[in-house]
Structure formats: structure tokens, C-alpha cells
């Protein structure tokens, strides 16, 4: 399947690199991918920043979001709705998934996670890892039992996308030398909206103030009369809801497979982003999301144009960013000393 082909001549590579439509194409794809990564990683950052919880179940929430959205678009017949109807229904599904997974997050936080705040952080990794194994197996049972995607849990389920993605989003628009798809535009707008929403939540609301105070000094926040436990629950709910929302977005993206392994497929890059940005730093996560998005897009482009003969070059590069970053700046771009050092 993968042969060692002769790499393109250097001159051709330079040609490609200087082609304006390729450059803008990579940039737009990078922004779109960065937006998706932001949606996936931002919940992880909020949860870590406030509670020091490395949430291994985060990817499972995304995977659940994708499946629920897939079932919903098929059940509601989004495919036959026309562009505006399809888009509207899609957003309603997204909100519903947010609420559903936020509730699931609250249940986990209150019944399981809360019990371990006093333990060393490794126990939280263990607990959420256990949750993710259990959630993945549960989804496998459901997929096999309900015969979703002919019962194949490890192969991408693309029926929902193929039946419901409006052609307006799938098609390419060309303005001058700039090419982009409607889906990319939508992903970028969603990324910007999530960014703005979280920023406003953190900086403009009283709850956001409590969250930021709690991130810095949980004990002092308690002593000022802030019910940090309730703040924890709220943030866990928001983080879980966002993870689910990201899953809804992925359902329409042909580059992602809706399947059970999706949980890990999104979790690992999300970890990379959170670490590269600096654990617990919202700003860092935003910057790192777009950085990883761009490099991912660059890798994909390099493979597609034949500069590099390596299918998963994008993934390899994502982990390479992690390693290089941790060598150069052990606490990430905007990390604070002390966060996550004790394991």
C-alpha cells in the first residue's frame, strides 16, 4: 500500500511551496483543523486548569457526541431538508448533544470524580481511563446490538455524513486563487464562536471570575466564600458538553471517522495541544490548537502533493511537536511552573 516512491525533485517542491493557491489552501485548512482541535481541547484545558484533572474520558465524550449526532441526522432525515433546514437542524442537534453530554459529565463528576480530588493526581488519570474503557465498550455493545454501520465499530460510519452534508458545504468555492469549502468556513466560524464564547464566559461572567480565581488559588477562593465544588461541577459539565459538540462537528468532516477508536484518535492530539499550550492555560490552548492545525494541514498537503511518502505524516508531526516543545519549553508555551509537576 505504501511504497517508497522517489520523492519529487526539489525544484518541484519549491514550486508547490510558492504557489499562492497552495499556501492559502494550507492556511485555510489549518485554520479549519485548528478550530476543530480548539473545540476538542478547550474543555480539557478548562477541566485541568481548575481541577488538575487529566481527563482521559474526554475523547470518549467526543466519540459519543459523534454517534449521537449521526443517529440524530439519520432519524430526523436531515438529508432531505434543504440547506437552511439541514443547517438549522444540525445546530439544534449540536445544542442537544451539548446538554446531554454536559449532564453525563455532571453525573460522572458528582458520583465518581469528586471522590478523588484529595488523592494524588495519578488516581484521576486512572479513574478517567477506566471511564473511557467502559464508555468505549458500552458504545461497542450498542453499535453491534443496534447494527449501526452494519455492526462495525472500528470502521468509520459515514452514512450520516453522506446522507446529510449539504452540497453547499461540501463543494469548493473559488475566489481568485483562494479555494475553500463551505465546511471549512463553517468549522472556522464555529471555532471563532467557541473561542469568543469561552472568552466571554471567563472574563465577563461572575462564574468565569470564580473559575479564574479557583485556577490560581483554590483554597483562597473557598475562603472568600466561593463554592468551588459547584464550580468544579459546572466546569466539568461545560468541558464535557464542548467535547460532545466537537464530536457533532467531526461527524460532518470526511477526514474523521465516526467509530469507537475515535475516542483515542481525538484524545491524543488534544493532549498534545493542552501540553504544548501549557497545562491549564486557555490562551496557550488557543495558540497551540491553531499551531497544531496548521502543521497538520501542512503534513497532509505534503503527503497529498507527494513531497513526503508517509500516510500519517500529520500524526507523526503532531507528536513531534509535543516532543520538541517539551524539550525546548518544558512547561509549554504559556505554562505556569507548578501545574502538573507532581505526579
Amino acid at each position: 500500500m505504501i511504497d517508497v516512491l522517489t520523492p519529487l525533485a526539489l525544484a518541484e517542491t519549491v514550486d508547490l511551496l510558492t504557489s499562492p493557491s497552495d499556501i492559502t489552501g494550507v492556511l485555510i485548512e489549518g485554520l479549519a483543523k485548528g478550530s476543530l482541535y480548539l473545540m476538542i481541547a478547550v474543555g480539557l484545558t478548562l477541566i485541568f486548569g481548575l481541577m488538575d484533572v487529566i481527563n482521559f474520558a474526554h475523547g470518549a465524550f467526543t466519540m459519543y457526541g459523534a454517534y449521537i449526532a449521526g443517529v440524530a441526522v439519520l432519524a430526523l432525515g436531515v438529508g432531505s431538508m434543504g440547506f437552511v433546514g439541514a443547517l438549522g437542524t444540525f445546530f439544534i442537534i449540536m445544542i442537544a448533544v451539548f446538554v446531554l453530554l454536559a449532564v453525563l459529565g455532571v453525573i460522572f463528576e458528582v458520583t465518581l470524580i469528586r471522590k478523588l480530588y484529595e488523592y494524588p493526581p495519578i488516581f484521576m488519570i486512572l479513574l478517567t481511563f477506566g471511564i473511557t474503557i467502559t464508555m468505549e465498550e458500552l458504545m461497542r455493545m450498542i453499535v453491534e446490538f443496534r447494527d449501526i454501520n452494519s455492526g462495525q465499530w472500528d470502521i468509520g460510519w459515514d452514512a450520516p455524513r453522506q446522507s446529510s452534508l449539504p452540497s453547499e458545504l461540501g463543494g469548493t468555492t473559488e475566489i481568485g486563487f483562494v479555494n475553500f469549502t463551505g465546511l471549512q468556513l463553517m468549522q472556522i466560524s464555529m471555532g471563532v464562536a467557541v473561542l469568543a464564547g469561552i472568552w466571554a464566559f471567563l472574563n465577563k461572567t461572575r462564574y468565569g471570575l470564580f473559575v479564574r480565581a479557583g485556577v490560581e488559588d483554590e483554597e483562597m477562593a473557598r475562603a472568600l466564600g466561593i463554592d468551588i465544588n459547584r464550580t468544579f461541577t459546572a466546569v466539568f459539565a461545560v468541558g464535557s458538553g464542548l467535547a460532545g459538540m466537537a464530536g457533532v462537528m467531526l461527524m460532518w468532516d470526511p477526514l474523521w471517522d465516526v467509530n469507537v477508536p475515535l475516542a483515542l484518535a481525538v484524545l491524543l492530539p488534544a493532549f498534545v495541544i493542552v501540553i504544548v499550550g501549557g497545562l491549564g492555560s486557555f490562551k496557550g490552548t488557543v495558540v497551540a490548537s491553531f499551531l497544531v492545525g496548521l502543521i497538520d494541514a501542512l503534513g497532509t498537503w505534503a503527503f497529498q502533493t507527494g513531497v513526503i511518502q508517509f500516510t500519517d505524516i500529520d500524526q507523526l508531526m503532531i507528536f513531534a511537536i509535543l516532543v520538541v516543545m517539551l524539550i525546548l519549553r518544558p512547561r509549554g508555551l504559556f505554562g505556569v511552573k507548578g501545574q502538573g509537576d507532581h505526579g
Partner: protein
Amino acid sequence: MTFLELEGVNTYYGESHILQGVDLHVDEGEVVALLGRNGVGKTTTIRSIMQLTPPSEGTIRFQGEELVGKDTYEVADAGIGWIPEERRMFGRLSVEENLRASVPDTSKMDESLEFAYDTFPILRERTDQRAGDLSGGQQQMLAIARGLIGQNDLLLVDEPSEGLAPQIVANVGEALLEASDSVSILLVEQKLGLALDLADRYYVMDHGEIIDQGDTAGVTAEDEQLRRYLSA
């Protein structure tokens, strides 16, 4: 009327038995100083009252209400403010955000902020600055301001003069004196002179126990007995 009352409080920190049966009380409107050498349990006493380091035995009543077993935020809601030793600013939040986070009742936000700025005009000038960028003295003012606008009836003040220049210590002392008109204060302080100036009564702690107490009236910083307690 007894306002705050500790009876037989025992607190462990890990495996060390820090407080070994502490009894003390603060009456309404009083300023009470808690004296003692380093490491005898003064800060732990305050942390035990706040339920930050919950005691394993004993009772702590505030306005007749038992505090042991409550969450820290409930203790704060009951009307106790903590002005900790290291000031504990939210360093990346602005001065105003630090103050806002301390006001429990949002409907009184504006007047609370006004009050804080009137008491410490320097804070008004720095309102948008990050609290972490303030000088030590300004941070102490902010910490006291946070305690004052938290609608508290009792302030637990831990080493307010620590690490401050003498002139600033005087300012802090004045601010606390002014505050004591409206709230009761339990004060932990190493500077004997400052403590005796502010306090109506004092307790002396050693090895997790109260070993002496008395009125500050007529007691000076040169008092032989007190100096012996406090010297290493």
C-alpha cells in the same frame, strides 16, 4: 456575648499533632491577639477555624453556630474573613477582579468597591493592574480590603506586618484599627508592639496549646514575661 469560641480543638497535619486542645474565644467588637513563636500552631488555629485544615476533635462555634464539619466556603458565608500570611492574591487577576470575587452580594458590588477604594486610595489608581504586579504593601492593603468588603463580622488576620517596611506597617496598623470599629479581629502578629497596640486581649500559644492569656491594658512590648514566651 461570646462571638467566636474554640473548645478543646485538636488538629493534625498529616501525622503531626499540631493543635492539642486549644480553647479561646473572641467577643463581639474585640480585637484579640494570638502570640507565640514560629511553628507553635497559630496559623493552624486560623486554618482550623476556616476549616481549611479541619480539626479532628473539639468544637468551634461562631455566633452560636458549629463550624466543624462545614465546608470552607460556608464558614466564609457565615461571616468570617481570612487575611492570610502570604496575602494570597489572585496574581493574574486585576485588582478590581480580586475585589469583585470577594463580594458575596452582587447587588452591593458598587458600594463595596467604592468603600474599598475610599479606604485604600492607592488601589483605585491600580484598579486595572494585575494584582501580582503590586508591591508587598499594596498587596497587603488589597488583602485587607478583600476582608473588609466580604461582609464579614470577624476577620482572621495572619501576620499582616510580615515583610513590610516600617512606614507601611504603620499604614496597615491604621487600616486594621479603623476596621476594628466595625468587625471583630483575631490577630496573629510577631511584632509585639503592633499586636499590643491593636488588641484588647491576648493569648500566648506554645506547642499547640494556650499557655497564657490576659488583658493588653498596661502591658508593654517590654514586658519580661511576654518576651520570654516569644524568644526562641
